[in-house]
């Protein structure tokens, strides 16, 4: 009797290889210093905050309707968006800019509030944090109307749309364009990427969203995990390439192995 469930062996092996690679570059290979390519969307955050400071208007951050934190595809996007929120909050505190977060996610609320509070504390201005900077509104349509209403009334200078977006992406993006806001988008939802690309000035695509935290902090260990990820990509590309060539020759060994 097999120890591992039939059909999941290769997934297990690849997952272990991935974890080992990341752990190696994060914690074992300590000598090497890693660099990551610049991400224009992240570099634009201080510019977005500066613009708001000059115009005397707020900055809006919203993670999209996403889903619950326990959702395997949306949850990590929300967490990655919160990583960006932390940086954004710090920048806003430094520049004295009002940051408004509109959140439709009840389970992420405590995390968002704590993240913003901590960022204010870190910048030495805990008294300036006001819980009213976070607006909670559940369900897609009410959330969308509330965000559109906020944009119309307060005309934020910059909008940061990062997280798990659905149809609200194009509506928010266009509304932001209408008020002339500078916009930074980011999502891993493939069906919404085109809309954010079309409506935002800068964009974090797919894995860039997850790598944002590492890119902001320039922490060596975090960058090491990105290096491990890149090695994993090379392995997967190699498997795909070999599988493609062998498949063309009617040799199905790679497909059979992956199906184990």
């Amino acid at each position, binding site marked *: 009797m097999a120890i591992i469930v039939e059909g999941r062996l290769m997934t297990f092996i690849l997952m272990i290889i991935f974890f080992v690679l990341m752990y190696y570059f994060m914690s074992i290979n300590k000598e090497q210093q890693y660099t990551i390519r610049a991400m224009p969307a992240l570099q634009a955050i201080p510019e977005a905050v500066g613009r708001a400071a000059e115009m005397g208007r707020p900055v809006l951050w919203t993670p999209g309707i996403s*889903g619950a934190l*326990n959702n395997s595809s*949306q949850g990590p996007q929300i967490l990655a968006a919160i990583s960006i929120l932390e940086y954004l909050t710090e920048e806003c505190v430094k520049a004295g800019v009002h940051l408004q977060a509109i959140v439709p996610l009840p389970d992420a609320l405590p995390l968002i509030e704590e993240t913003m509070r901590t960022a204010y504390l870190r910048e030495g201005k805990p008294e300036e944090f006001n819980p009213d900077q976070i607006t909670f509104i559940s369900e897609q349509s009410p959330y969308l109307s509330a965000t559109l209403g906020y944009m119309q009334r307060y005309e934020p200078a910059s909008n940061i749309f990062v997280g798990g977006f659905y149809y609200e992406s194009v509506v928010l993006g266009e509304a932001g364009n*209408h008020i002339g806001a500078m916009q930074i988008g980011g999502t891993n*939802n*493939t*069906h919404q990427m085109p809309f954010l690309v079309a409506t935002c000035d800068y964009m974090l695509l797919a894995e860039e969203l997850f790598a944002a935290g590492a890119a902001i902090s320039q922490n060596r260990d975090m960058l090491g995990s990105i290096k491990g990820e890149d090695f994993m990509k090379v392995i997967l590309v190699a498997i795909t390439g070999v599988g493609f060539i062998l498949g063309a020759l009617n040799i199905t060994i790679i497909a059979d192995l992956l199906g184990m």
Partner: protein
Amino acid sequence: MASGHYWVKSVDSTREAASKMSALSKLADIDRRVFYWILFIALMVPFLNPIGFPITIAPNTQDLYDGITGDQVDEGEVWIINFGYGVSAWSECHPAVTVCTKALFREGAKIIFIGPHYDVELTYNKLQDTCREDFATKEYGVDYVFLGYFTGGESVVAQLASDIASVFPQDHFGTPIGDIPMMDGVEDVHDIDGVLSSDTGDYGGHFMTQWQGPYGTKLAEVGIAMNGSTDLPRWQAGNFFGVSVGSRGGAELELLIGELGEATTAMDSISVSHLLLVLAIIIGNLGTITEKLGGKE
């Protein structure tokens, strides 16, 4: 004098060209409200005067239809239809769900209806209306059951795979699940023969991760057009045995089952709006090119 005349003419022609140029370059920056009004008016035309362009069947829609008809479905099979859409997406999802319900009922399958949208009851009632004749031949609790609303996202989809009764101890109308004849022996993923998820969000993806991947459950998706770019790779990879994309998918399914309905009617509007959009893009580019040429001069 001649040269002066020539010079004057030259200035005139340059001014004329520049004025034409600036008029054309305005095409690059037309107020969006102009387009909204044109679209609004143009969309009314096919409703008042239907055109009826022919429709061809996409392979992903054909696969969906084939997977829920003929040899692919045996009498007595138990299927789940997940209403992952609300009233707002009725126009895109409901026609396809209607056809799938009809097809499954006609093959003798039993259906469990569930939904993660707060207005799931309205969608269920709408289905009762759009599949009136088919529901009339079936008995509630024996051939179909409406378990109703669920919340909790992907965790619930995973939980349904292991124990349906723990998520739905009773149906939508308050009947304990143990008292529903159809649910006798239907306890978990192993007792379900197929799932059809219709979504504005990603419940199809949740069923793929929690049902199709680990247990090999037959799974199909009826998505809004926006989700097509995500759903089609999953169909090509074999995760979904078929996919219906937006109103167009619904119209194709209506054609396949031979009962034209709401989606077929909507196709004329789709044609008009898409054609207008292509025209708008051409106009915008005309403006941009003119601007570029003007800039170079």
